[in-house]
């Protein structure tokens, strides 16, 4: 069957898709987007987390046909600022200042704040769980009206398994990203809302 799906803002078509393929397989093997990882294939580990119509899902459990006509944002799309959730703090998040992070590496200036904070906090070890964690953390931060508490971060990431880090640095990265994104959103509000600076 043919599957039409918007991925990272681009209309894409996958042909000769077998009904038993997952959205994850279509993304990785047919559309050339290996960011979402294939690990447990049971929805247990969260390595394959992507946005589907604006909410995070385990792409391994979405049958290919179920993705027809829908919008997907993968971890690749975050780095170009394509994961738009209306009203979320990320929407008002300006492009990161390329000179601000001081970390060497390719295209760090194009990374989303969550990705930059994972690098800064050293939250990456083998890296296999990282894309899923980044997307899930991005969703948590974008949908929260304030900086989430640790318990909220832990619950939001409960479906993402990491076998290397022990999670401490991952939590550091998410706290850092949440604080920055919301500080920026607050500063933006203060500029655009009359009297907002005093609220």
């Amino acid at each position: 069957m043919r599957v039409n799906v918007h991925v990272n803002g681009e209309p894409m078509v996958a042909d000769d898709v077998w009904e038993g393929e997952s959205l994850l397989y279509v993304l990785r093997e047919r559309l050339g987007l290996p960011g979402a990882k294939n690990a447990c294939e049971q929805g247990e580990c969260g390595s394959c987390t992507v946005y589907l119509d604006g909410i995070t899902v385990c792409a391994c459990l979405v049958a290919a046909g179920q993705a027809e006509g829908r919008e997907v944002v993968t971890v690749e799309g975050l780095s170009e600022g394509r994961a738009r959730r209306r009203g979320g703090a990320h929407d008002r998040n300006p492009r990161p200042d390329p000179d601000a992070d001081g970390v060497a590496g390719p295209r760090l200036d194009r990374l989303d704040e969550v990705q930059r904070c994972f690098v800064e906090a050293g939250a990456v070890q083998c890296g296999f769980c990282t894309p899923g964690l980044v997307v899930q953390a991005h969703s948590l931060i974008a949908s929260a009206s304030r900086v989430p508490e640790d318990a909220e971060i832990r619950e939001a990431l409960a479906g993402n398994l990491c076998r290397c880090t022990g999670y401490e640095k991952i939590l550091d990265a998410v706290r850092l990203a949440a604080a920055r994104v919301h500080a920026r959103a607050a500063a933006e509000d203060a500029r655009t809302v009359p009297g907002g600076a005093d609220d």
Partner: protein
Amino acid sequence: MIPFEYLRAGDPAEAVAAVAGRPGAAFLGGGTNLVDHMKLGVAGPDLLVDVSRLPLDRVEETAGGLRIGAAVRNSDLAAHPLVRERYPVLARALLSGASGQLRNVATTAGNLLQRTRCPYFQDVTTPCNKRVPGSGCSAAGGYTRYHAILGASEHCVATHPSDMAVAMVALDAVVAVLGPGGARTLPLAELYRLPGDAPQRDTVLEHGDLIIAVELPHLPFARRSAYRKVRDRASFSFALVSVAAALDLDGGLVRDVRLALGGVAHKPWRATRAEAELRGGPATEDAFRRAAEAELAAARPLPGNAFKVAMTRNAVVATLRALAEEGR
């Protein structure tokens, strides 16, 4: 995974006709359980009829209650203002289940119809009467930490895994079904079966029956309700034992109560004996304990889960005590 066809149904009647007309067909909702089972070889439908996009995704107000469409996602239902206000037990039960990614996809009807997580049911290399009738039960004499203490049979000791369904059973939910013979409703508590000698049947639904909605009746005192879940880790884990309760107090007396247990039986277990014991009696810890013990008199624990009898009793007492204190 064995080959299958995929059909996206345009309306509920088309979906019912498509499944009813083919013995090997199955409805596909969010897929978090069925797609997993197809990969594991536990399920092998030859036609998937996708009902996840049917216009059954609304929560509507009824006379004091709610009608929840079958395709409403677990995360959306948990966040719904009227659910949080009128039935906090349901919001809390939903949020205690699965992970964020799974709740975002899992549907109301799919949650009700999810299958047991008994490890032997999910492992096609072991005998299991629920998966292959007559093949035997590997759990009897095996690993039984998550298995039943109430209502089991020699053929099956599996438990129902849903948290949401435990809250709904406590709330006297009614299920609206569209089948090949037309529409009907039945109490959710009567949807589920005990295993008996036919553990392959989780529910009384027939092939082609499609749940289209769950109705929650007007129950004002459910505003004071709670869900307590005891598990091996703080999140993303099935219940060892869970308790859904709503408590209506009249001074120091129990005017009315709803109580259901999860993790203890082949179905969400409405604790009718405990409720009868509690109604009209004092809202004291002693009374809560006696009521729990009355319900658990019928418990028949397995070698690996005898702890669940005391755990269930204590969880019931703690849940009711917290609700009673909330009301003072």
